[in-house]
């Protein structure tokens, strides 16, 4: 038995809680990755991200219940649909703000997020809607990890989000397209002079970041209730993750997402009352020691 804060726990249970922490970390990583991409390329602190995550879950629900389109198609369609709304927001509002202080983008996206959440609450109520775990995944049965039996859907969430995170990192850091993007962030005028349509690239980047949020929403729908406030309860934590990882750092946000999921999970065992504050305590400490975040570059 291991004892911390007067709370004893067997190693087997401890491993179980770490595994669960990784599942939550997968959501944090996916969402903070989208935020990091948007901040890195657009310099916009996208506070609509939580609402867009929620929209992803609702689109999945609507596809299933109104059109009979199941989970697997929703995994593709919801990010595209919600990403398209993101493109509209960028074209209509955000493009006017790039030259202004970060604060304007923050306030605008925060307001848009509140409006979207309010509209959904008005239409669908607050109790949430049920979305069943896809039968194909449920059929696998619990996955025996030796120390615990993890429901198959949770395993899927971790595997799938790790794959998406790595693919995103690869595209941005290792491909020609990613190189254009990074160059456009550094010096848009010069990149435009080479014949690359920078505004369109920025629009699509925002759409992509929003799509990542929606993808997180689809993944979350079978685990949590599909409810209008599901985004607002996670987004604050995700911002803390991004700040800890370093604003705009792709790899930083992925690693920090998973790590904080685990830390939060362990807090739920040893001192559950603090489980929704522990991340902010860590954020405060990191900001004191490394103001640019763990993986951030000081400029």
């Amino acid at each position, binding site marked *: 038995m291991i004892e911390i804060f007067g709370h004893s726990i067997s190693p087997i*249970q401890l491993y179980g809680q770490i595994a669960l922490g990784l599942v939550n970390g997968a959501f944090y990583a996916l969402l903070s990755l989208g935020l990091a991409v948007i901040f890195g390329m657009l310099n916009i602190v996208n506070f609509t991200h939580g609402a867009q995550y929620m929209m992803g879950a609702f689109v999945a629900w609507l596809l299933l219940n109104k059109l009979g389109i199941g989970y697997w198609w929703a995994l593709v369609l919801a990010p595209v649909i919600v990403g398209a709304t993101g493109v509209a927001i960028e074209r209509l509002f955000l493009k006017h703000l790039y030259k202004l202080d970060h604060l304007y983008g923050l306030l605008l996206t925060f307001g848009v997020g509140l409006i979207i959440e309010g509209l959904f609450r008005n239409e669908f109520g607050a*109790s949430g809607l049920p979305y*069943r775990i896809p039968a194909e995944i449920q059929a696998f049965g619990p996955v025996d990890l030796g120390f615990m039996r993890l429901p198959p859907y949770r395993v899927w969430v971790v595997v799938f989000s790790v794959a998406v995170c790595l693919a995103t990192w690869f595209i941005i850091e290792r491909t020609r397209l990613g190189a254009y993007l990074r160059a456009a962030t550094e010096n848009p005028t010069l990149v435009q002079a080479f014949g690359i349509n920078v505004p369109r690239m920025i629009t699509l980047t925002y759409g992509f970041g929003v799509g990542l949020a929606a993808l997180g929403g689809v993944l979350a729908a079978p685990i*949590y209730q599909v409810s209008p406030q599901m985004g607002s309860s996670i987004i604050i934590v995700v911002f803390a993750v991004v700040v800890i990882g370093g604003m705009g750092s792709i790899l930083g946000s992925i690693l920090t997402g998973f790590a904080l999921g685990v830390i939060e999970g362990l807090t739920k065992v040893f001192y559950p009352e603090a489980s929704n504050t522990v991340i902010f305590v860590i954020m405060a400490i990191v900001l004191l020691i490394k103001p640019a975040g763990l993986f951030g570059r000081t400029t």
Partner: protein
Amino acid sequence: MRIAPALALAAALGVTAGGAQAQITNNEIKIGILSDMSSLYTDLAGAGSVLAARMAVEDSGIAGRGFKVDFVSADHQNKADVGSNIARQWYDRDGVDLIVDVPNSAVALAVNTVTREKNKVFLVSGAATSALTGAQCSPNTIHWTYDTWVLANGTGNAIVKTGGDSWFFLTADYAFGHQLEADTEAVVVKQGGKMLGKVRHPLNTQDFSSFLLQAQASKAKIIGLANAGGDTVNSVKQAAEFGIVGKGQNLAGLLIFLTDVHGLGLPTAQGLIFTETFYWDANDQSRAFAKRFSERNKGIHPTMVHAGVYSSVIHYLKAVEALKADGDGAAVVRQMKATPTDDPLFGKGSVRADGRKIHPAYLYEVKKPSESTKPWDYYKLRATIPAEEAFRPLKDGGCALAN
């Protein structure tokens, strides 16, 4: 300055016009519905509570007898400070005579104090803590619909008697959760059961898997959910995902509302046992009310909280009409206690000296999907707890008004 004489004239006219009903403050009865309008308790209270209060006023026909009634509503955001500030502003500035509903026990306890200080009336439907008729009882407050003691006693008793004698609690970490846990623990221990542990989670938690795993490790036969709204829904949903029910452990939802069952869907919610004091499909009168209510509430059927708001406002209006006055809150509450209650939703009942409204409670079980024959057909009745046994005995509450 020509304005001054005009103002004086207007004031004089105002006084003359008010003369007819000099005892009704500001010439109108003003009802404040303070609720959760934007978060986890919105569907079980929220806009539905505003509608229930309106329907009570319409059905009472009081407007036809020369009384003017007005409404105001606000969102307390589940914060006690926000709630008490709104209450203060309503009483001091906006001429509100009574506040109804107030889900969230922490907010309700705060409003309880403000109402007593201002000598107004507080009719609690949404909040659960039995402290409102216990140590913190007030001559200005009536706790209408249910409380933590009813839930603990109804559900706890029934479960221990059918063999669920070891418990682990998942408790919402605030006034309501603590009270519900304490009340249930007392019942379980009294019946010879034992407590194997508890974990207190923050309000509005998304992921319960960690807590559920701790509950599973305790090997308790019953995992008691001392939480409400979205927290309960996510607990039940994730317990199903982790296959906790069926491996010798069962969930006891201590506070489950109709809208929670609707949100979960019968495949996940089936078999849950819990206590409520009102169900829309109980009799012809409740069905008729539910039909009228849901038509004006996007199809959402009334929860017991909505029913309690309706019933309490009806009784309040009767008292004000009898007194022909609404200024002295304690006097109105005294009148409400002195008169037996009678309305279509809770039937005949009474209000006790400690401010506890008395009516029967019911033990319900959620139907299997195959048993449900129409929309919102979710509950089957397991037992009726008679009014005299449903609530905490007057002498046990520790309320000063009880003596």
